[in-house]
């Protein structure tokens, strides 16, 4: 069942929903990356919660003029209008008052959401019927989705992706250096507005699939995941799109494969699974590689200090140092150096002496800055330079007459 869902063989509608979720995830991932790089990830939370009153208003208006209140394009248009109002409110609070952006976000999201709930209770008491299902916008519901709705979502996701591809350069520039972007003749205000417009579009398109509380996850988690894998902006954008698309695809497929698996939460949890894997195992920024790097450094320092102690005939008490030396066959169990240990210890002491001289000589100032207690001097200086140092270690000889 799951395999069939993953390979798009679970009926026409399920296939369409899965494709739609995939495109939505990809679009959300790439859009969210710019938001993340601008350090404004949580603005999307305000935008998402602010869609609710729009959905309610649109339902009331459509029902009042005699249309079907659940007509999806109408509801989405309404949600876009109120989400934009929410975004403007955040901007207004930040620019016109001394409140910081986080307070503005929290205020807007709670007030708009509260007002949306008021409208939902108004709708429940209306005599039009068909109001059931608006709650689906809170957590998303793909069950019983109409064919036209699925097409709308897939098209919306594709459109957002296309616009991001067009605007990626100016948006990247804005993310890293707004001043430079402005100096290069771009209009920062307009680019920010375009970015927020894209976020808004993703939110509105995603309402039906993942719901307004969890759509933020698709905008935030994939970019954070991709950030672990690369330091280059274009690769992070690409990676975020990929992680988002995979989350949407697998999430929708898993949710279609069994009952009681709501689409939105499953997509979010798949996205988090990818995040957790990347956090743990990504090269260089992942936890595992950070830990390995730490261990390598620790081992190096302990070995070096242990060898120096051996060379100078000092007893070693530090258990980790002893263990490391023993495991490498450099000391015996009673702490006495083996032949190899004695040789390596002498070499370490020699190296340390050379470094001492190098660090005391102005001529080697640049090289001496690289001293960290681990690097061997052969890696830093040429053989000739080392020979010069060795001559000094021998000490200045008295000139004979």
């Amino acid at each position: 069942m799951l395999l069939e869902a993953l390979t798009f063989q679970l009926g026409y509608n399920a296939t369409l929903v899965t494709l739609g979720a995939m495109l939505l995830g990809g679009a959300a991932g790439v859009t969210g990356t710019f938001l993340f790089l601008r350090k404004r990830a949580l603005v999307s939370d305000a935008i998402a919660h602010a869609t609710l009153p729009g959905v309610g208003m649109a339902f009331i208006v459509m029902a009042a003029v005699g249309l079907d209140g659940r007509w999806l394009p109408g509801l989405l248009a309404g949600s876009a209008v109120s989400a934009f109002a929410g975004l403007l409110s955040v901007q207004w609070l930040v620019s016109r008052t001394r409140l910081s952006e986080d307070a503005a976000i929290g205020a807007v999201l709670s007030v708009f959401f509260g007002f949306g709930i008021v409208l939902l209770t108004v709708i429940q008491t209306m005599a039009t019927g068909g109001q059931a299902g608006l709650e689906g916008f809170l957590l998303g519901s793909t069950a019983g989705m109409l064919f036209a709705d699925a097409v709308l979502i897939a098209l919306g996701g594709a459109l957002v992706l296309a616009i991001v591809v067009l605007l990626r350069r100016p948006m990247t520039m804005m993310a890293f250096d707004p001043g430079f972007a402005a100096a290069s003749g771009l209009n920062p205000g307009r680019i920010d507005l375009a970015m927020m417009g894209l976020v808004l579009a993703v939110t509105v398109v995603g309402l039906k699939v993942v719901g307004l509380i969890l759509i933020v996850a698709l905008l935030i988690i994939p970019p954070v995941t991709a950030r672990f894998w690369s330091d280059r902006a274009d690769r992070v954008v690409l990676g975020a799109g990929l992680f988002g698309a995979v989350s949407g695809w697998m999430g929708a497929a898993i949710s279609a494969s069994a009952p009681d698996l709501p689409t939105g939460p499953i997509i979010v949890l798949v996205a988090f699974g990818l995040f957790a894997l990347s956090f743990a195992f990504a090269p260089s920024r992942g936890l595992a590689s950070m830990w390995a790097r730490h261990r390598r450094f620790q081992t190096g320092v302990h070995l070096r200090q242990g060898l120096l102690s051996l060379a100078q005939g000092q007893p070693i008490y530090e258990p980790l140092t002893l263990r490391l030396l023993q495991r490498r066959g450099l000391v015996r169990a009673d702490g006495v150096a083996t032949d190899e240990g004695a040789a390596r210890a002498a070499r370490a002491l020699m190296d340390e002496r050379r470094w001492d001289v190098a660090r005391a000589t102005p001529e080697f100032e640049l090289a001496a800055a690289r001293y960290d207690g681990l690097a061997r001097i052969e890696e830093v200086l040429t053989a000739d330079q080392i020979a010069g140092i060795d001559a000094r270690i021998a000490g200045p000889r008295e000139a004979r007459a």
Partner: protein
Amino acid sequence: MNGAEFVPLSLTPLVIGCLAAIACALPGNFLVLRRQALIGDAISHVVLPGIVVAFLVTGVISTWAMMAGAAAAALLAVAMIEVIRRFGRIEPGAAMGVTFTTLFAAGVLMLEQSDTSGVHLDVEHALYGNLESLIWLEATGWHSLLDPSALAGLPSELFRILAVTLVVGVLLAVFWRPLAISTFDEGYAAALGLPVRWIGLGVVIVSALAAVAAFDAVGSIIVIAMFICPAAAARLMTNRLGVQVAWSVFFALMSAVLGFVLAGYGPLWLGASDAVSAAGMIATVSGFILVLAGLFGPARKRA
């Protein structure tokens, strides 16, 4: 509307709403000043998985178990945010976004998977609360306030939120000075030898306590709105911390009372027959207060 109708049906929800608003607004002042407003948002989201897990573990709807679960979830969320921020080197906003959406999604999934249909536990309830249902059936009028047998029938949510409000108020009074110093100048506070990290964690824990108690009575919308809106509006009224806290309590009370009255009676005045969500209306009113403060507050601009 007379006492015979008002006391049993509206008095207790109104008082509970006011207490919940105050309990959240008090720590909210410090969350807003410390730029941690969205911690309140995160906490109110992760309360859901906390109570679901508590329900699944204990198998009963027990308030204390659920409050413990919610508090544990709040602490777990704070720890997760900290780990992602520190070891993943991710900016705090994004770390928060990853954490609370994931925990909320897990809560929803567990709720759908477990058989909770027989009990009153669903996502909508968690969001809107059920302020209107906290009625006092034993009361027959104002004189019931002096009648021990009627008082015994008061909803237990009232006592819990009252206790939490008192605890929050007392903690605030006791730790006022260190709290104020570390909020405005963390470096100076650290130089004085104050445990700034513990103070920061304490603010979060007290917020979680207020959130959980308020959530139990009124749902998570009010919690977020009351954490932020009254404190933010109060911030625009004055430069003095003490005055700001007083304003925030006043705004919280106004939101709760006006919101409750508008939700209950507003539709009747407009000719409709049914009340609307009180929790939603309280949040809406607090938003209006914030807008007014933003337009006319004497300290609305940076000094």
